């Protein structure tokens, strides 16, 4: 055991503290009464007036921290961290039809970007076609519309999939979109071992937070893990899953819940894959994570550090993973969309800066910074550029990336890291007692916890217990002009009509018998419990639509309607 401080020092500090509380503190309190009776983080953790080595009296350096690149990775998964390579500045954006997206991707590539990111519209996200009555008015709004392989062919027309990597924010329909991507690569003659990118493919957080669910929890996890298994065996460069706390946080959880629920989701996936008979070290290095970075600065940093430590322990001790890479928690971060305000939107630049800084000090592998106008709309070009520049300033001007884990050893940060870890374990324990996250989700447990937390937070804002500049403190009588900047208009109706027309043509011209056969085989494979990926790939290549493939799977697996919990 290597304690940070010896007992003798701790004793001396404790004595000094007592003396300080008796002599120095009262005078100060008299002259400067404290601003609040209780100071708390966003997770409602009470923050003490001062932290000293006494708060880390039993802290074992190697158990809690170690060195970067070594277990338990609290200080980072790489030995040199950003001294070697900066985090990836990955900006997620996009809307319109496949043609517009293709143009935009080519523009990005021309400007040196190789890490592409695809956002899909809502009909695609929930697995329905553009001509479905439910899709009306939503086609092409929040991302690109994809109905068939044809759309994917258009999106990547003239782009060599062997030379770029693509991040696809897609969940229940992940097998279909990944199949389309792979089918395009095949047509381009790109071998599987050069196809790189990510599918979000994290169904549990859909039930908890994002609500783009389709299937009930068990089949949803089964299907997602089909994607993982198939990718591990066929696409060595693909990250098949991004286990996401971001949406959980945005839906109103606090930092502890975000951390605990995300890791509990991860545990459920690992357990499923192990039960499937896979070797944990075969797939663990392929798992990645996605967190939120909120405005309570130190709490976020502590959260990221605790996350690494906890996951390393889970993989090593619970699941017996042997490869150090299996112990890594690699993660992407996005700054908190919910922390932005419609009032005085310029201030959002500052919020995002602070949140981005927390992500960097927390050791993220990649980062998306939000644009200041996001409370209203998809970002304008200027706003998106400022967001990217924010990251670049942090990276190139501030010097915060020049040493590894610079906040290690801060009495407060270490104490808070421990505290968050402790509280997150308690949540995980509760979820495990329920039978794991799948059962907890069916009971609505995390959903209810989030609803409670978000309601509590909103009330605290209303009651003036928490401050949001421009909202409940320093409010402007007259709002700034920027709020009135007109929207970058997209002709949604035109895009929808175009998608429907293309879909109609494809339905007419494709080999119908081939489509039917592929869907029938997919259904049988699903009923037998086989990995559906090869069958989805066949159906996609026959130009079966997203809605047809998802519809076939719905018939086998059923559809989820959330428990009526508010």
């Amino acid at each position, binding site marked *: 055991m290597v304690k940070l401080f010896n007992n003798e020092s701790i004793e001396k500090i404790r004595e000094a503290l007592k003396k300080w509380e008796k002599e120095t503190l009262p005078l100060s309190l008299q002259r400067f009464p404290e601003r609040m009776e209780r100071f708390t983080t966003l997770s409602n953790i009470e923050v003490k007036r001062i932290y000293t080595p006494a708060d880390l009296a039993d802290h074992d350096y190697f158990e809690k921290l170690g060195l970067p690149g070594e277990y338990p990775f609290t200080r980072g998964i790489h030995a040199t961290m950003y001294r070697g390579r900066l985090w990836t500045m990955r900006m997620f954006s996009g809307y319109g039809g496949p043609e517009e997206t293709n143009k935009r991707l080519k523009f990005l590539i021309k400007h040196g970007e190789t890490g592409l990111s695809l956002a899909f519209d809502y009909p695609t996200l929930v697995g329905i076609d553009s001509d479905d009555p439910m899709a009306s008015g939503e086609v092409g709004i929040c991302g690109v519309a994809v109905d068939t392989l044809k759309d994917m062919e258009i999106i990547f027309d003239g782009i060599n999939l062997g030379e770029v990597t693509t991040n696809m924010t897609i969940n229940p329909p992940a097998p279909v979109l990944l199949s389309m991507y792979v089918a395009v690569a095949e047509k381009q003659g790109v071998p599987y071992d050069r196809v790189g990118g990510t599918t979000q493919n994290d169904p549990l957080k859909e039930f908890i937070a994002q609500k783009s669910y389709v299937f009930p929890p068990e089949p949803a996890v089964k299907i997602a893990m089909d994607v993982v298994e198939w990718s591990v065996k066929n696409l060595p460069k693909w990250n098949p899953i991004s286990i996401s706390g971001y949406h959980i946080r945005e839906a109103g959880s606090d930092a502890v819940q975000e951390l605990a629920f995300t890791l509990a989701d991860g545990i459920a996936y690992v357990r499923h894959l192990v039960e499937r008979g896979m070797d944990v070290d075969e797939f663990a290095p392929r798992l990645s994570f996605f967190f939120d970075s909120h405005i309570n600065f130190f709490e976020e940093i502590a959260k990221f550090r605790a996350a690494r430590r906890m996951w390393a322990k889970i993989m090593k001790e619970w699941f017996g993973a042997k490869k150090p890479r299996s112990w890594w928690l690699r993660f992407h971060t996005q700054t908190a969309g919910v922390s932005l305000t419609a009032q005085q939107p310029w201030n959002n630049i500052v919020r995002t800066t602070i949140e981005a800084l927390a992500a960097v000090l927390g050791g993220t592998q990649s980062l998306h910074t939000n644009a200041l106008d996001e409370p209203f709309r998809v970002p304008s070009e200027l706003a998106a550029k400022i967001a990217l520049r924010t990251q670049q300033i942090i990276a190139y001007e501030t010097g915060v990336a020049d040493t590894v884990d610079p906040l290690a050893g801060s009495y407060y940060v270490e104490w808070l890291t421990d505290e968050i870890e402790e509280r997150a374990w308690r949540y995980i324990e509760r979820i495990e007692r329920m039978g794991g996250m799948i059962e907890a989700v069916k*009971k609505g447990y995390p959903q209810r916890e989030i609803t409670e937390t978000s309601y509590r937070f909103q009330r605290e804002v209303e009651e003036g217990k928490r401050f949001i500049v421009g909202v409940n403190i320093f409010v402007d009588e007259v709002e700034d002009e920027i709020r009135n900047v007109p929207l970058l208009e997209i002709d949604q109706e035109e895009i929808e009509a175009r998608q429907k027309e293309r879909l109609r043509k494809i339905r007419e011209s494709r080999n119908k018998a081939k489509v039917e056969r592929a869907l029938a085989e997919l259904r049988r494979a699903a009923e037998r419990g086989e990995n559906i990926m090869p069958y989805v790939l066949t159906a996609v290549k026959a130009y079966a639509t997203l809605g047809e493939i998802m519809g076939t799977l719905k018939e086998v697996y059923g559809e989820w309607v959330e428990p009526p919990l508010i």
Partner: protein
Amino acid sequence: MQSSKPREAYLNSLIERAVGGDRAALGKLLTVLERPSRDSGIVLRTLVKKSGRAHVVGVTGIPGSGKSTLISKLISVYRSWGLRVGVLAVDPTSPLSRGALMADRLRMQRHATDPNVFIRSIASKGFRGGLSLAALAMIEALDAAGYDKIIVETVGVGQAEVDIMHAAHTIVVVTMPGAGDDIQALKAGVMEIGDIYVVNKSDKPEADQLLEFINFALETGEIGSGEKWRPLVVKTSAIMGTGVEELAKVIEKHLEHLVRTGRFEEKVESRRLMLARLFALRIVEEKVEKIIEAHKREVSRILGESDDPYTVLEALIEKGLREL
């Protein structure tokens, strides 16, 4: 009373429109029936002449047993049979909160736009005159409006909900594995008076155990409606829709039994008796409250100062009633 004439005309037109298929009118009619009043009396007078045909199916079970999802699937089966379905969803609400938050409808919203389905949520509290009076009156309205099946959903807790269940022709008790799966749970309140028992979420491993349990309890007579009907047990998985068609058929079997034995009409009659009884009780209650309000100070002293509080209170009320 002159002024009551136009009001009555309005109510009659509301009924006419509601019975004629105007859903907005039916929605408003149900609101009138939410509380006992002269208006609701007038409405009921007309409604009962048109009602008495519908088969009222009470579906009860603890929160989380999957009732709402099951009902949603049951509606689909009835619709495929060409039947019109009305639903009254009694949503459990904390008696402590002022308002109510009702979300049972969420599970059935896919039927919202079907012109032959009508779903109405009822908060389990907040009704002057009581929940059961409101629900029973609404049954008459949906019945008169021509709905063939009226499904009444409750958690089956409390006297009001027990009353509502007694007003149903057929009581379906929904259970699920793992929810305190012992006989005590089944013996709580309306759980023991089912005509049909459903083991929902039957894909769970403990489902067969629960099934055995219920069958055993039925054999020993610990549960069951006590009529000349041996309750049946059905396994369902509402989320997958399995077993729901069978459940619908079993409910039909019970309906046939009721019709054959003459119990169907008897139940309609007893339902109306209960409705009138609750109505009367409410009238009395309102009057008594008025009397007490008028003699507040006197009443507050009775317990402490009177030798025979019961007789004094009785006399006070009787006198008050004469004066009203």
